[in-house]
């Protein structure tokens, strides 16, 4: 722990006692302070001389902000004044409010100044043209603090009723993005304690003081609480500020302490005793921090960061302290083919006045060290994500370097599919779903020292929900009617482990654990009614029985492995195969019956369109392999039990769902299962990629093969018959697919009676659809006779009854010629004369 530093600097009396505020100009050359007397002082950095005084200003200033050319002050008499820094004189009165000004924030480009006063409305005024004003009106109480995010797109308002309002200013009219309740406390606008929001310089998170005297970090992508700087202050926090690169945090409280925190560890690295600090400002480039007190004094503290921590201040922009950094996770997952993520990062480099630009040559050399770990103790290897680097050799290259640089002087590298566990989501905040399926769901909460895992079931009568403390940090799970399977990654010294817990047992203890050889990471696990499958980075597929007896181990042919799924004795494994035409590896799958040791499909291609990714793979309730890809199409594998015959058939295109027809809805679907001829999924709105808490409801959609682009049947009764044709055609193709699957199932297994009846019913369904199609063709005109006959020829029925019915349909529409031909066909069929192929 850092000792209190004894060396004291002397405060310079700048203003009469009272609240005093300060700011640095972005170039760091000047420090401007404003206080309760009618004078603003402009100090020049590095000079000990007397500051320049600007005397033609108001009394009781409450805020000051500056660019390189001008500065703006706000005063309790409600005026906002703008001063030139060249001449140090009043330039203009920017804005006038009826009530005292409480805070001013300047957008990073200096074009907009947001002004909070005791009025309810926050005004954002253009500094060049003061007639252009935006109003932020959603809050119901006056606003105490304001702050722009580093890109200037968002502004956070700390309202005096304890709610943070985040507005987006990228649109013409400011739009409320989020109300964050319960993070800051209720504070009067003139209270000494602070409820300020401070955006982390990397722009992905902000920090705010909580009622418990901590400083809590919250990410602005999902509004989840991340790490907190806790138990540092004994009194309310009055001021805090991130260092320009976000690696350090300085805070001051009513306990007369000023603390310096290391962001990565959230530990205090230095303590200073300075009472009544009201505002803190870091110098943009030097090891210099200034702060003002409510006694009207200003302290300029050179070399405030102890020399042993100087390396922290010298780095480029550091990542915000996330619990599970999404960037670190993508990185650790190796060379993903996520195209969008790449762009996300490049945008960061391009921010107009990012801190790296300001830092200039100092930060120039290590622009990429945001990700590349330069000091050997970087965050990518933090204890929190100990592993997740299965393929070290693939990621020594900076995977996300700007594209231009890549193509210029780097050799070609294929994009690969990243391994994933079916039904799990990535960390968001401190929670993630380990498994989500039709049986129930498993989720885990990161409690710093351990995790807590909760398993809940849909059917509460059949199973009992359970909950346990998990010291092993399980990161994958499977759940079915018999039991729950968990696995964890190896940590230092401990090998990877799997843990199976049956739901029911007639002995005292039936759960078991087993470990894998050292250095072997688990990429995916699967649980079926009879076996447990573990796919590892050594490319092994390890098969265990339900009671933990190792059953088989074999090496997968395609590598590296991606995922696996299982159903009864069948297991489907997926891995990266040879490189395809789009520069991405082809995904290969193998289906095997482990009990009989039969390979059903060996190294066949998973049919994906160019640049699409696999989102999920699972077996349907009848045991047919299904995949869902990033283009929103659900496919089923036909004839997969016969080697070489497998074929992917689309059974639902979620982009063509009727609910999206209006074009107003913006939603995606997170696949869960295919059961009872329905697609079960979770609807994700608002650009979410994964389901989150509270657990969203499952939705179900009927299967619909994408056949034609005709609009779906309108609600208008009269017109619905016009759409009958395409609808029936779709029914015909879909029932044929279902019939194919059913036939395979009945032929391959000892089918039950109900399955056989269903097969017969499906056969009738196909013919019924054809019969209805025939009726439509007959109704249309005589000219459609050829097509009508072809439809009849498609009928599968061997008994002749369907052909009889078809003949009747033709006769009803007086298509006598057609009826005659149908009769001939029926006779030929009965006699067995029809030639096959």
């Amino acid at each position, binding site marked *: 722990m850092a000792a209190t530093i004894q060396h004291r600097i002397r405060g310079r009396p700048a203003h009469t006692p009272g609240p005093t505020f300060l700011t640095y100009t972005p170039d760091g050359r000047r420090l401007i302070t404003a206080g309760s007397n009618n004078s603003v002082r402009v100090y020049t950095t590095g000079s000990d001389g007397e500051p320049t005084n600007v005397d033609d200003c108001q009394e009781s200033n409450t805020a000051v902000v500056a660019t390189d050319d001008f500065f703006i002050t706000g005063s309790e008499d409600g005026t906002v004044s703008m001063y030139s820094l060249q001449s140090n004189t009043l330039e203009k009165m920017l804005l006038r409010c009826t009530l005292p000004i409480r805070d001013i924030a300047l957008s990073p480009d200096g074009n907009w100044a947001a002004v909070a006063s005791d009025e309810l409305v926050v005004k954002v005024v253009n500094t060049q043209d003061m007639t252009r004003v935006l109003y932020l009106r959603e809050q119901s109480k006056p606003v105490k603090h304001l702050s722009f995010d580093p890109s200037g797109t968002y502004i956070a308002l700390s309202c005096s009723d304890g709610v943070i309002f985040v507005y987006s200013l990228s649109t013409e009219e400011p739009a409320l993005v989020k109300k964050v309740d319960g993070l800051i406390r209720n504070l009067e606008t003139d209270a000494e304690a602070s409820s300020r929001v401070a955006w982390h310089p990397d722009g992905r998170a902000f920090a705010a003081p909580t009622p418990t005297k901590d400083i809590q970090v919250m990410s602005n992508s999902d509004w989840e609480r991340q790490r907190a700087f806790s138990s540092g202050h004994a009194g309310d926090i009055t001021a805090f500020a991130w260092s320009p690169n976000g690696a350090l945090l300085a805070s001051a409280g009513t306990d007369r302490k000023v603390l310096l925190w290391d962001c990565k560890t959230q530990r205090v690295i230095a303590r200073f005793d300075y009472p009544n600090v009201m505002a803190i400002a870091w110098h943009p480039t030097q090891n210099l921090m200034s702060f003002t007190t409510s006694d009207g004094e200003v302290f300029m503290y050179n070399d405030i960061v102890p020399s042993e921590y100087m390396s922290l201040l010298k780095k480029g922009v550091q990542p915000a302290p996330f619990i599970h950094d999404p960037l670190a996770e993508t990185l650790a997952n190796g060379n993903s083919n996520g195209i969008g993520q790449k762009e996300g990062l490049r945008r960061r480099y391009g921010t107009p006045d990012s801190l790296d630009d300001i830092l200039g040559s100092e930060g120039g050399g290590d622009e990429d060290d945001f990700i590349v770990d330069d000091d050997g103790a970087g965050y990518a290897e933090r204890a929190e994500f100990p592993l997740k680097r299965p393929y070290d050799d693939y990621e020594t290259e900076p995977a996300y370097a700007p594209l231009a640089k890549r193509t210029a002087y780097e050799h070609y590298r294929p994009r690969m599919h990243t391994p994933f566990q079916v039904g799990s989501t990535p960390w968001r905040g401190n929670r993630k779903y380990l498994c989500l399926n*039709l049986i129930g769901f498993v989720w885990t909460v990161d409690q710093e020292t351990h995790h807590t895992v909760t398993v809940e079931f*849909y*059917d*509460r*009568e*059949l199973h009992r929900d359970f909950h346990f403390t998990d010291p092993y940090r399980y990161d994958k799970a499977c759940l079915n009617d018999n039991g729950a399977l968990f696995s964890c990654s190896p940590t230092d010294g401990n090998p990877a482990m799997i843990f199976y817990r049956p739901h029911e047992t007639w002995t005292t203890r039936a759960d078991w654990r087993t470990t894998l050889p050292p250095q072997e990471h688990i990429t995916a696990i699967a649980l079926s009614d009879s076996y447990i499958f573990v796919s590892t980075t050594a490319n092994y597929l390890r098969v265990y029985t339900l009671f933990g007896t190792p059953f088989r181990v074999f090496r997968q042919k395609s590598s590296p492995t991606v995922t696996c799924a299982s159903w009864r004795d069948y297991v489907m494994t997926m891995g990266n195969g040879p490189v395809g035409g789009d520069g991405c590896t082809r995904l290969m799958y193998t289906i095997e019956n482990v009990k009989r040791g039969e390979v059903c499909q060996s190294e066949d291609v998973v049919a994906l369109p160019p640049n699409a990714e696999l989102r999920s793979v699972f077996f349907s309730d009848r045991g047919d392999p299904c995949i869902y890809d990033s283009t929103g199409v659900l496919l089923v594998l036909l004839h997969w039990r016969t080697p070489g015959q497998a074929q992917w058939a689309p059974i639902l295109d979620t982009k063509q769902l009727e609910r999206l027809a209006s074009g107003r809805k913006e939603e995606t679907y997170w696949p869960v299962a295919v*059961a009872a001829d329905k697609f*079960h999924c979770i609807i994700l709105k608002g650009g979410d990629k994964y389901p989150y808490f509270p657990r969203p409801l499952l939705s179900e959609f009927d299967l619909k093969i994408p056949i034609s682009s005709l609009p779906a049947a309108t*609600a*208008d009764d009269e017109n619905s018959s016009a759409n009958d044709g395409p609808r029936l055609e779709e029914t015909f193709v879909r029932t044929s697919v279902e019939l194919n699957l059913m036939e395979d199932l009945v032929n391959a297994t000892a089918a039950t009676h109900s399955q056989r009846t269903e097969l017969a019913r499906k056969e009738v369904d196909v013919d019924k659809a054809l019969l209805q199609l025939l009726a439509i063709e007959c109704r249309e005109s005589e000219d459609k006779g050829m097509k009508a006959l072809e439809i009849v020829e498609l009928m599968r029925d061997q008994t002749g009854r369907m052909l009889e019915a078809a003949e009747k349909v033709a006769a009803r529409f007086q298509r006598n010629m057609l009826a005659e031909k149908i009769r001939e066909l029926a006779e030929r069929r009965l006699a067995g004369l029809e030639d096959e192929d």
Partner: protein
Amino acid sequence: MALPLPPGLTPPEVAFLCEMELVTVVPRQRLEGLELLGGTTPELRPPYRAVLPLWLALLLKRQRRANILPPPWLHPSSLDTILRLETEVHKETFSPPPLFPPSNNNLHETRSAPFLPSCTADAAADALPYHWLEVGEILLDAAPDDLVEPDTVRRLMRDLREVRMAKMRAGVAVLDGGAVVGLKGVGGMEVSEGRAFISGVIDNLRKIGASREQSRREREAEERENGYDDADEDEDMGL
């Protein structure tokens, strides 16, 4: 003629009938199909959705054996849209009722309230069905935890109800001239609540009209007795 009850269904009766409406539930435990007078209920298997009559769904909900999926029109955003329709687009009339679902066979089709799937999870989101008020109130009362933002829903339901009641009362004003008020899109509960008021108004109007009519007839009779010819009578009629 001393029947104590007013004619028509009373609000409690309407509320009772509305429990025939079908709603979608997500069961929390298994239940075989029940052989009931109204037909067999579907087998319940979590987490598959099932369509049940409202009374059964409420029973299961109270026993915490099922969650009710609110119909799409009971979502705050849809209610908000409908409220905007009521106040901005259809300023005089009521917002239109949901369209009939397309069907294959036109035979054996029921087109009346409890037999339309107007309160299931795939109902139309932008129109209020016949039993909207009752179903909304019952769900707010029995299953607020299954609704999205129940407080907002409650507020919007009240707003809608007030807007439509005001329209109903405003419609009565034109009845004096013997005009007709369109009641398309009015819900069952609204009709039964408004019945006493509207029929009272019409009765009174008729009474006022009847005395006027009576006096006119008497005058005519008197005039005829006094020997005025038909032409004059026609002039009177013209007035």
